[in-house]
């Protein structure tokens, strides 16, 4: 077991690594180019959800991710930070109903508890929804968590002081080339028994992954408090178009700028409304075109939103991987260099549980998750950048 570990990046993955390492009594040096949750983890929607995952490794990992959230909420680390709720997949058109039927089957097949709700029942029980809704499916036992709050909770529990505004510039290799020694920043060199790269898009520069990691922008909106409407929403409402845009149904191409509607009632009485998936650039800005279209969709689904005010909009860049799966595991032949990144739009859900398994791996144990599908070795170009 290592006695010290360096982690590059204090997003949700880096913060969770710090938490699980510290819990084992391992000394952690956590670096961030900016500050904790400065990138995707501070600009995420926060669905801790299996509802929209593609069947297979992502679905099973998401189920483990949700279970970990529940456990950490019980243990107190995520006390008040995890809101258990269902996700309602809502279909309007015939095409959407068709996708939804297929998706429900896949979810049930993976052991997820799903209840289909027909048109009449939707109209009777969910009056907040537009009468145009054709059918819905309730995906049970899910939840919502706000990325920056989770990062904060993990760091507080780990008790460490983060090295803010200190970018990891290089990974230092031992003189015989068999393992890594540590990292270099503008302030100097740091050594440790192991190094983990959890730098989101910044991982590309450190590991020669440009072209493999792709920024995928998302824009999100937050409303003012509207407790009455919020209280009438039984859970998150997710338009089935989300399934199409996310490409979780294989064989359907995703547009360059997809709008995928999710309306999440927050604990504060506010609503979080998402969002876009955009292939162009990593800008952290919002445009009226996207914002007004998202809201038009939201009002079409939940007409009551028309009387609420928008408080904030924000945007972030997801770290996507060309083949759609995260990159988690040991790097090349270096026994003590690890990577955990590429979670695209799922890292709030998958980040903590993946970090737990990486820490097991770092400590020479067999990880609880099957990380094989995510192995870094599927990218031969992946190496320590000079």
């Amino acid at each position, binding site marked *: 077991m290592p006695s010290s570990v360096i982690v590059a990046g204090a997003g949700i993955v880096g913060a969770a690594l710090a938490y699980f390492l510290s819990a084992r009594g391992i000394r952690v040096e956590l670096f961030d180019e*900016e*500050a*904790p*949750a*400065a990138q995707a983890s*501070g600009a995420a929607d926060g669905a801790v959800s299996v509802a929209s995952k593609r069947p297979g490794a992502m679905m099973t990992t998401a189920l483990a991710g949700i279970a970990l959230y529940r456990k950490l909420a019980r243990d107190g680390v995520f006390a008040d930070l995890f809101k258990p709720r269902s996700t309602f997949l809502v279909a309007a058109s015939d095409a959407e109903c068709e996708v939804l039927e297929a998706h429900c089957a896949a979810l049930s097949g993976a052991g997820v508890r799903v209840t289909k709700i027909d048109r009449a029942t939707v109209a009777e029980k969910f009056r907040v929804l537009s009468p145009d809704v054709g059918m819905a499916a309730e995906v049970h036992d899910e939840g919502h968590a706000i990325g*920056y*709050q989770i990062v*904060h909770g993990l*760091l507080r529990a780990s008790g*460490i*002081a*983060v090295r*803010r505004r200190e970018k990891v510039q290089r990974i230092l290799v031992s003189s015989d080339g068999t393992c890594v020694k540590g990292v270099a920043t503008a302030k100097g060199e740091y050594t440790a028994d192991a190094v983990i790269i959890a730098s989101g898009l910044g991982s590309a520069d450190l590991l020669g992954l440009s072209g493999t990691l792709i920024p995928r922008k998302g824009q999100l909106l937050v*409303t*003012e408090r509207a407790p009455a409407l919020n209280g009438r929403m039984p859970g998150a409402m997710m338009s089935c178009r989300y399934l199409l845009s996310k490409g979780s149904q294989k064989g359907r191409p995703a547009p360059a700028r997809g709008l995928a509607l999710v309306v999440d009632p927050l604990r504060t009485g506010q609503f979080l409304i998402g969002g876009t998936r955009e292939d162009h650039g990593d*800008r952290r*800005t*919002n*445009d*009226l*075109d996207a*914002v*007004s*279209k998202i*809201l*038009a969709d*939201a*009002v079409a689904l939940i007409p009551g*939103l*028309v*009387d*609420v*005010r*928008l*408080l*904030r*909009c*924000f945007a972030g860049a997801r770290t996507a991987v060309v083949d759609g799966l995260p990159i988690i595991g040991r790097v090349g032949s270096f026994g003590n260099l690890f990577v955990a990144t590429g979670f695209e739009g799922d890292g709030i859900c998958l980040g903590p549980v993946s970090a737990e398994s990486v820490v097991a791996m770092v400590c020479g144990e067999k990880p609880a998750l099957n990380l094989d599908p995510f192995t870094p070795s599927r990218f031969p170009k992946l190496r320590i950048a000079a």
Partner: protein
Amino acid sequence: MPKCDVLVVGGGPAGMAAAVTASQLGLSVEMIEQRRTLGGAFFRQPIEGVRPIPQRASVKARWHKLSADMSRAPVRIHYGCVFLGVDSDGFVLFEDRQVGEVVRCAARAVIIATGAIEKVHPIPGWDRPGVSTAGGLQVMMKETGQAPKGRILLAGNGPLLIAAAAQMAMVGNPPVAIVESGDPMRPGLTGLGLLVAPYLLVEAFGFLRAVYGAGVPWLRGARIEGIEAHAQGLQATVVRRNGERSAFVVDRVGLHEGIRSNDMGLPAIADASTSSPIVIRAGDCSEPLGALAAEADGALAARKVAALLGHGQSRGGEQALLGRLRQAQAVLAKLFAPTIAPLDVPDHTTLCRCEGRTIGDLKNLVAGADLKSGREVKHNGRFSMGSCQGRFCAANTAELMTRLRPGAPPVVASDLTGQRWPLRPVSIAALVAATKVKAPVD
């Protein structure tokens, strides 16, 4: 969709001067103003049918000239329109509250002249009903032509307290006292520096005469410690330099600790000729120097924009005037420097009113060796996350964070507020209405 060379945001003296000068220089100009009248904070116009409060002749003359110039200039004014920001496509966004629609405007340049806001320090009870800003009471007087009712205590720092008290006295309800942390009359100080701006001296004498004439006590070197509920209204505790305490039972308290730029969340300044759009700030929202300076700075901003847009260089006397007024402000700041140390503020004191967060909450969050950024404190303490978008608490939170962590890098208000639209909460109905407007084609 409106299309123009220059969009001016805010119809105070800075915005008006900017619009007038820009159109004189041959640029097409439009203006948005959230209210239904021009004038801003200083030249706030009375509502219809109300007799204005007495004003000095020179102030009246300045307003007449400015509004006459403005009505002659071919500037389209959109009233009832709230500036929301500049989006990532480079469009200026505003909410037209009369029509109920968010509008995007393709402007080559934006001159932002949104003025100043008053600073208020958190003390126990600052968020009680009946407590407002002193300038807010003053502006209300200008609008209604009447003094605010009841017994009023003004407290804080700076010349505005005297001006507000004088105007209240003139319309028949002088405040019960002015509590001032500075002491401009202390021995060893001469007002001679003020000769750089003689009009300020004239103004000051006029105000002081009105205040003394009405017998209003001016408690200098004193601070207000807290405001509590009382059977007959509010009870304010005042502490003098020598530690002596006294209580005032009043109906209202007007607090004021000077002004700061109303720049929360504003888009970044972009003043290269290649910027699209060019974004610059003018008047109090760029540097809070008062109404006369605002007017000069507005004209200067218009000249700068004209030059950037290739409409040629031009010069007025604004730079020199601004220099003198800057010096005058520095002298005023020295005159009014507090002569009593800040009081201890208890942890239960509200810091963020929108989200109900206290000074104690902030202390807990920033305690320890892990030096959180302003953004982290915002996110996890919810400071500046409420509907005022940080207008009331961002600066105080940043200041307190900096004070609580000596040695750590200082935190500024914009670390909490960021720079993104919408600057104000905006109706979703109005945003949805914007989808009906076709995106512009160039």
